[in-house]
């Protein structure tokens, strides 16, 4: 029934890396991936508690599957399929600490070096960012941000609806 509800009318062709996917299409895809996955999880683990990491895993998987026209989604898929424990949970928080330290240190220092540092930080945030060169990475970051935004909206609505 979900499939019927989720009616994919449009194909998304990302013709330019920086172009934002139509939010509607993305969110439809996203929910269509995530909801069945969660359902399956729920059914498989009836008695035991649903692990937080597996949910995160499904969340990331849904993100990657819904945005397959972008390079970062490929890397994300690779990461997810190779390991069962997603590392994004820990890395984001540690990066947060690190960036604050760094900006404190480099007060008046070498500007280019600073920028390089920050670009590298950004690369770490993006899945697969370290394998790309900087220009590519910047294009991909734009789309990644948009998809993250849509993802948060989707998740929020799901959470709020179930309460």
């Amino acid at each position, binding site marked *: 029934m979900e499939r019927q509800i989720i009616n994919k009318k449009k194909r998304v062709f990302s013709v330019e890396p920086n172009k934002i996917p139509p939010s509607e299409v993305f969110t439809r895809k996203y929910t269509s991936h995530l909801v069945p996955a969660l359902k399956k999880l729920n059914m498989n683990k009836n008695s035991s508690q649903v692990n*937080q990491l597996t949910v995160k895993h499904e969340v990331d998987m849904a993100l990657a599957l819904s945005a397959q026209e972008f390079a970062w989604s490929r890397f994300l898929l690779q990461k997810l399929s190779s390991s069962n424990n997603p590392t994004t949970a820990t890395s984001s928080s540690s990066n947060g600490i690190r960036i604050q330290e760094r900006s404190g240190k480099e007060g008046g220092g070498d500007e280019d070096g600073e920028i390089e540092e920050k670009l590298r930080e950004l690369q770490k945030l993006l899945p697969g960012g370290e394998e790309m060169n900087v220009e590519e990475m910047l294009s991909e970051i734009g789309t990644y941000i948009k998809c993250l935004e849509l993802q948060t909206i989707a998740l929020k609505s*799901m959470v709020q609806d179930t309460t």
Partner: protein
Amino acid sequence: MDLSVLERVKWLQQQQMVSPDFFEILGSDGREELKRVESYLGNNNDELQSFRHYETIDGCISRTSSFQIEQVKNNEENRVIALQHKRKTEGKTEKIENKKKKKIKTEDETESSMKGKSNMSNSETSSEIQKRDYIHVRARRGEATDRHSLAERARREKLSKKMKCLQDIVPGCNKVTGKAGMLDEIINYVQSLQQQVEFLSMKLSVLNPELEYHINELSTKQFQACFTDLPEAVSKQLMMVDASSFPLQHQESLDYSVINSIQTTTLGSKDQTSSGWEIHSQSLYNNLRTDSVSSFFSLE
């Protein structure tokens, strides 16, 4: 006209500023075409009869001046434009700034099938560059003949163009000037988004066992509606809650004050539809909620 084009092309070749520079700066997708073109120039100097158009992908062809695209006959022009549009739809090539036009005559029609990939049309005079939709790197006369600095400049312009795009996407970037500040903002924004996703997925994982999944079905319906029409979403919610078969005894309800605080820190404020929807749903839930158990945020 034919002769002049030939002459110019030959001159280019003689100057030998084209070939080494090209292959330095050129992206990989243009390189093949260029190689073919080079072979053409070497072989077919006297026999060229029809026009072919290519676009180059590099930043330092013009050492002295800018190129001008000659006004070609209607068909070719249209074809060039059509091909350029096709080109633009190829993703990355859009980001590449410097498109110099080269016109190369060739009599090999079969290669017109290659046009989907890339086109090079070269024509140069000493005057204008025809404005297209992309950024040119102008190498002015006597300036930066060094291929490194030209490449460097092209690269920097590309970067700044992308930074501008990012500025539009990331909220709050407009106030900060300079690359470093913007990058900081972007990094913080991405981090906060990722943390939000993490947090929400945690919530979901807690909610998961108690869910009946038809709730989720309904949510996807509502959710789609929220992107199309806001009042519709609200009315649907009302209908569904009235006719609900939710397991009320297992429902956990969130403390909306806490949610509000989260909402204010998020980009929900930026996205008009989502914030509007949340406001509607909030009023709805306030009316319908029986418990006010706030168990969630102890999880954090």
